[in-house]
């Protein structure tokens, strides 16, 4: 995992661009423009146009994921820790997870209007299950002997949480955040298409509609870099908080 420096991203970026370039040469259709043109376009429109879209998306992702974490983590931990809670909640989760949340969009819009709230809620609804399931499974795989020292100390749940559940599940939590973050970015595409003129989802969808593939790919590059940043931050967090695990 560890030891990834900014330095290793360069070959990856170069590789992806080269791959893209080769495909664009082979296909030779505007549907796959040369990466050179897309980057040129990106530089052209970044500061006047894309920056503000990226900013909006960033805020929605952070808000949506944060909400999912705030609600999903406690429930996931409780489900993993207490078999009774799991017995009751697992069927609920299993039934509601596969519901395509986008199908609920009209309902969400009816209930919350068309402002920021439904967009953030949509990210939340999609991402919370991933957080919840990963934490539950993480907690439930802690060997039970781990808890014995705290049991004999008559520790409160708060102590058990701080001393065992949280540190033990932190690596799973970070994995869950990785998955959730990636998902959140890729669902922007559906959540940012209504009631707004800003957001990378809107930007890319609009470019697609306008058959403006250069804009569209510029947008995709930005999303990709945005993901890279968020993942990089997570890697740093992991390196810092999971020192004991190295």
């Amino acid at each position, binding site marked *: 995992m560890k030891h990834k420096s900014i330095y290793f991203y360069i070959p990856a970026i170069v590789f992806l661009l080269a791959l893209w370039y080769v495909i664009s040469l082979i296909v030779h259709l505007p549907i796959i423009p040369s990466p050179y043109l897309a980057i040129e376009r990106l530089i052209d429109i970044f500061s006047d146009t894309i920056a503000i879209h990226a900013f909006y998306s960033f805020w929605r992702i952070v808000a949506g994921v944060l909400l999912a974490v705030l609600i999903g983590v406690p429930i996931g931990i409780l489900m993993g820790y207490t078999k009774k809670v799991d017995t009751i909640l697992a069927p609920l989760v299993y039934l509601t997870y596969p519901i395509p949340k986008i199908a609920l969009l009209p309902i969400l819009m009816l209930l919350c209007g068309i402002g920021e709230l439904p967009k953030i809620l949509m990210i939340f609804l999609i991402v919370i299950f991933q957080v919840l399931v990963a934490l539950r499974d993480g907690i439930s795989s802690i060997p039970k002997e781990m808890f014995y020292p705290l049991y*004999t*100390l008559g520790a409160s749940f708060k102590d058990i949480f701080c*001393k065992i559940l949280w*540190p033990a599940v932190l690596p799973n939590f970070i994995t869950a955040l990785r998955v959730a973050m990636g998902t959140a970015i890729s669902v922007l595409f559906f959540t940012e298409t209504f009631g707004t003129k800003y957001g990378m989802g809107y930007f890319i969808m609009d470019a697609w509609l306008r058959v403006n593939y250069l804009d569209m790919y510029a947008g995709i590059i930005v999303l990709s870099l945005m993901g890279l940043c968020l993942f990089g931050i997570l890697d740093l967090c992991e390196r810092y908080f*999971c020192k*004991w*695990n190295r």
Partner: protein
Amino acid sequence: MIQIDNLFVKYDNLNILEDINLQMAEGSVCAVIGPSGCGKSTLLNILAGINHDYEGKVFINGMKPSPKKQTIGFIPQNYGLLPWLKVKDNIMLGLNIKHKNNSQIPMDLIDSLGLNKLLNRYPKELSGGQQQRVSLARAFALKADLLLMDEPFSALDAITREEMQDVFINLWQQQNVTTVLVTHYVEEALYLGQKIVVMTATPGKVYKIIDNPLFADKNFRDREEFVQLSKQLRIYLKKAGRENEA
């Protein structure tokens, strides 16, 4: 005071402990000795309030084992260190939970256990014996009402072991803590046990209880009873091991 009446324990359908009866006065030390797999750790887990799945009566000072009300210092066979806490935090774990945050690092104790250079390491950066000493430090620092030690010196070399035994005897003399100690060594049982309980092989029963005149005598090896008692104990042990082998 510990009072055990007609204790039975099963795993699945296998009897592990059968009809255990035992009384221990407040402030006394009891050494438990018996063949591998006879149920010594199981007994300790019950006293520690970890295992509630037994039949019969177990009382500590008139109450069922309840770690919330009693302060129990427990050294499990596998040390029970939390891998994400540094040595100093592992040592302070009990103090922080029991006496909340106004507790000082017990530097004297740490010195006498030879851990002062290791305080900032994680458990997995320690040798086996060092880990065991951290576990000792955690239990000793607690000033417990009841001390439960499962082979607490097994990973220590002969010299260190004797030093640690003396640390324990000093502690006991100062605090007069009721102690149950599981050991595999006849000599250790003779030095550290006021009462020595010999158990039979699975299913574990009490085979003999010996009152030990050599207890806490630094020169116990030179006393005349020593050779006699240790021979006697070895014979008991051999017989107890064969007890259920039919």
